[in-house]
């Protein structure tokens, strides 16, 4: 009995049949490359005799940027049938450049494209903090890269905090694992001063993850500055070109991101010395200022003392002058006194003789002597010495002075004897 298929049934049947083939690798030249809606990839693979439609999901393919029409590639994938229209295609899971130097060509092509987009531009590279404190480290756990980095960093500077995010750096899932690290660190560890993505040396194949377009773009897009160090001697990886700073090895990365404590100690010492010099200079200048004032003060005191001394000297001279004058005067006075004394002496001698004579004379006339001889003196009431009775009247009071006293009496009778 002839089997009759419904269209849908037939397409399904062929699809199942094709699925039996499994994964294949088909080599050919790319023609009509089309990336649609950021999601789908369509290309036609051809050789001299035939062509084959290839379909892919962009998110599951890497290094799409490296692809170009005319490029010889090997497409890893499975044949599929789109059942609705029975369109046959190869579902690509991996597209890698084929032929001699193809990998290198693809690398160059991707590099040129990313460069033209500005991912490697020097002017967009950020300056790293001179003194980082919080450092994100993205590398393989237990790797030489890890221990080298940590060891050299500690030799450079202490007191830092390292946030270590272990990843696979090569092989299956390496790109995804590093992408996840970048995303997590950028989302939850934004206060990191920088990220170090590193691995040790390896073959070109080993280092492929660091040339992956998605990883390069993620490095470029990182909010936290990125230092990338992939140890190899060949070309620089694209991730390194997109990083803010490139280091040659994990150790070199540690050296570049942290200043050495030796340098910093020297710097601190230099600044300290400079401070001390400044202090000394100021003290010196203050001292000089003080010294200058002191000297001025001394000079001024000296000046004043000199003036005083001069004044005293003048005074002294004047005093001497007056003293001399006084001495001269005293001499003069002495001389005059002597002359005066002589004169007085002469006068005195003359007068003494005269005095003696006068005294004799006076003694002779002393009335008291007369009274002692029995005479007396009588005064009237007016105190007039009576020489005559002529003026006396009866009853008049008289005072009689004798040699040793006086007596009062009254006139009883007046006998006037006329002088003959």
């Amino acid at each position, binding site marked *: 009995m002839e089997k009759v298929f419904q269209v849908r049934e037939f397409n399904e049947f062929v699809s199942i049949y094709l699925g039996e083939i499994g994964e294949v690798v088909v080599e050919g030249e790319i023609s009509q490359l089309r990336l649609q809606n950021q999601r789908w990839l369509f290309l036609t693979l051809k050789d001299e005799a035939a062509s084959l439609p290839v379909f892919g999901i962009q998110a599951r393919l890497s290094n799409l940027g490296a692809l170009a029409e005319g490029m010889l590639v090997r497409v890893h994938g499975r044949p599929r049938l789109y059942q609705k229209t029975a369109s046959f295609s190869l579902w690509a899971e991996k597209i890698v450049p084929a032929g001699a130097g193809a990998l290198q060509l693809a690398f160059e092509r991707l590099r040129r494209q990313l460069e033209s987009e500005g991912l490697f531009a020097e002017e967009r590279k950020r300056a790293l903090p001179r003194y980082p404190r919080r450092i994100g480290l993205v590398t393989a756990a237990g790797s030489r890269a890890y221990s080298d980095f940590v060891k050299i960093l500690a030799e450079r500077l202490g007191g830092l905090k*390292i946030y270590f995010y272990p990843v696979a750096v090569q092989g299956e899932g390496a790109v995804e694992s590093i992408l996840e690290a970048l995303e997590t660190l950028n989302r939850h560890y934004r206060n990191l001063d920088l990220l170090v993505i590193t691995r040790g040396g390896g073959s070109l194949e080993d280092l492929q993850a660091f040339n992956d377009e998605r990883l390069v773009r993620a490095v470029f897009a990182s909010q936290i500055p990125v230092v990338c160090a992939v140890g190899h001697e060949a070309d620089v990886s694209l991730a390194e070109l997109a990083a803010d700073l490139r280091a040659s090895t994990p150790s070199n990365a540690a050296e570049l991101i942290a200043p050495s404590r030796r340098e910093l100690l020297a710097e601190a010492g230099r600044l300290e010395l400079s401070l001390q010099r400044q202090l000394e200079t100021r003290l010196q200048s203050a001292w000089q200022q003080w010294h200058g004032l002191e000297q001025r003060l001394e000079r001024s005191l000296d000046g004043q003392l000199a003036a005083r001394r001069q004044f005293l000297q003048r005074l002294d001279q004047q005093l001497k002058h007056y003293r001399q004058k006084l001495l001269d005067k005293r001499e003069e006075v002495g001389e005059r006194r002597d002359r005066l004394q002589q004169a007085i002496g002469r006068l005195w001698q003359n007068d003494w003789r005269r005095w003696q004579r006068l005294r004799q004379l006076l003694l002779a006339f002393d009335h008291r002597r007369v009274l002692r001889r029995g005479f007396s003196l009588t005064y009237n009431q007016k105190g007039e010495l009576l020489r005559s009775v002529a003026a006396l009247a009866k009853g008049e009071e008289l005072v009689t002075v004798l040699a040793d006293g006086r007596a009062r009496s009254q006139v009883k009778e007046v006998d006037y004897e006329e002088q003959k």
Partner: protein
Amino acid sequence: MKSKNEVGKLSLAAAFKELESLVEELEGGTVDLEKSLGKFRRGLELTKWLKKRLRKIENEIETIKEE
């Protein structure tokens, strides 16, 4: 100086920056002795702390684990 500027709380960067600007200012030569004494004291405090800080040899490592 103010407590918020307490030397021990400064970062390496902040301490160096402050010290450098102090030295620059003093080298400018406009600050007189009396005013500069405070700055000298601060500067020496900073260098002392920097030297102490730079002698630290340990770095702390925290491993980030994804759930």
